[in-house]
């Protein structure tokens, strides 16, 4: 089975900015893949190159084994892109927009599928409304719908939940998850790291146009983050524990790898005569991974 996306040595320069620097990446069919990085890291440029909106200076990009330049028609049929900007055509209704978008892909009679998408995105009651009349969240849903009219096997969502309310986020993720379960490959960029942690089975982190980490979500969490015992105590932590601990806002945080270490840590705290007033166990989180990868050297790639 060919990978859903194959990116080989792709570079792109805008003036003095190296937006992408020899990026290589393979995403398998059926993956839920996260593309993370700070603003300006090259996420959108990479997606744009994949979609043919930007032409790479060098390297090759393939979607479902179709080259995005040489075989652009086939490649674009395989790909559905939800752009980051909240764009819409003010001349048309929701349904018209979707019918027109279908037509661009050569699909003439698409109303059954359009109805299904509208239903799944909670847009049915807005089908006849002009795009101008919709709220931001509703426009965002229409953008998702437009990306899906041609049933693309690979769906790319560029920060789909930026500035979106909780209800839409949940509706959207439930729908995208169903699509993923039905076999669609999903590529997601987001600034909400808990979303990426929850949804993505594999993650690439970009920094200044380079991939600085690429692994399964669980491996990244294991490698760059750990569990921690978080305590509020009535006096200062003994020196031997303090070496490994961090303190913020009155909470001491003691990292550990395995749960049976908790007992030992607690025993040492008690032995030092500290009274524990509050206690919680912190789980590894992607935010910590992200911060550490972004601060660190680009050695996470494997």
């Amino acid at each position, binding site marked *: 089975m060919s990978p859903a996306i194959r990116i080989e040595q792709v570079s792109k320069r*805008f003036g003095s900015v190296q937006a992408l620097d020899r990026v290589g990446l393979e995403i398998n069919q059926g993956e839920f893949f996260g593309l993370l990085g700070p603003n300006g890291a090259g996420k959108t440029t990479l997606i*744009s190159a994949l*979609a*043919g*909106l*930007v*032409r790479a200076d060098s390297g090759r990009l393939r979607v479902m084994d179709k080259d995005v330049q040489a075989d*652009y*028609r*086939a490649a*674009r*049929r395989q*790909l559905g*892109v939800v*752009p980051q*900007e909240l*764009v*819409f*055509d*003010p*001349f*048309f209704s929701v349904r*018209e*927009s979707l019918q*027109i*978008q279908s*037509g*661009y*892909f*050569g699909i*003439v009679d698409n109303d059954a599928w359009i109805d299904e998408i509208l239903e799944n995105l909670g847009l049915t009651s807005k089908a006849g409304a002009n795009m101008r009349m919709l709220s931001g969240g509703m426009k965002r849903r229409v953008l998702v719908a*437009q990306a899906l009219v*041609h049933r693309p096997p690979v769906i790319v969502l560029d920060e789909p939940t930026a500035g979106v309310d909780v209800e839409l986020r949940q509706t959207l993720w439930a729908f995208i998850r169903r699509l993923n379960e039905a076999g669609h490959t999903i590529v997601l960029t987001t600034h909400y790291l808990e979303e990426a942690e929850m949804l993505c089975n594999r993650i690439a982190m970009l920094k200044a146009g380079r991939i600085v980490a690429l692994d399964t979500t669980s491996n990244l969490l294991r490698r760059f983050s750990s569990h921690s015992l978080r305590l509020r105590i009535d006096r200062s932590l003994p020196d031997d524990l303090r070496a490994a601990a961090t303190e913020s806002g009155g909470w001491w945080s003691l990292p550990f790898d395995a749960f049976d270490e908790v007992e030992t840590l607690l025993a040492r705290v008690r032995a030092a005569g500290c009274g524990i007033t509050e206690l919680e166990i912190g789980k590894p989180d992607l935010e910590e991974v992200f911060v550490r990868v972004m601060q660190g050297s680009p050695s996470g790639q494997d």
Partner: protein
Amino acid sequence: MRGGFSTLLYKEVLRFWKVAAQTVAAPVLTALLYLLIFSHVLEGHVKIHGIAYTAFLIPGLVIMSVLQNAFANSSSSLIQSKVTGNIVFVLLPPISYLEFFAAYVLAAVVRGCVVGGGVLLATLWFAPLGFAEPWWILIFAVLGGAILGSLGVIAGIWAEKFDQLAAFQNFLIMPLTFLSGVFYSVHSLPPFWQQLSHWNPVFYMIDGFRHGFFGVSDASPWLSLAVVAACFAILTVFTLNLLKSGYKLRA
């Protein structure tokens, strides 16, 4: 070519039709005002090629409306899509640059001809018009509209802001269409300007178009056809190369 091209053409026609008061009725009214004013002033004083002035003026106003509105259609659609960002909706699908060009230009021709037809209907009552050689009418309306439609594609892609497009329109398209024999025969001009007019391709569009009504014109309609067809061919090659290169559309 069912698919991308026909849908894009349909969308472009629907786009202007949905705001027909602004895109069709308004230019028809403008042309009607020109007719009322100029015919009031000049009717009975001026005859050109033995034709009464109002009758002479009507085809000029019709083709001028065709040209200006063809340009306005493709250029304003593209700049709006670029500024609002919804141009991605046509860049993401598998639409070739040839289909893109053909759809925008053809929609411009449709808009031009709808407005031109409207002007003709609205002004028909003011003077008796012959339709001496109707094929020329159709040929020059379509080719003229296609040329200005292509120019509109170029301007719409080149311009990044509305005022840049307005400059293109006000300083190039308007003078070209106004100073090309809409309101007068170039034979009435001083020799220098007469010579200059013969280097203006828009003159041939108007002259050839008018020939279709009266069977007489400043230049031979065949010469006009050759000039206009050559212009269209050059513009087509240029615009297609521009689109192929991805200039300002695909970075």
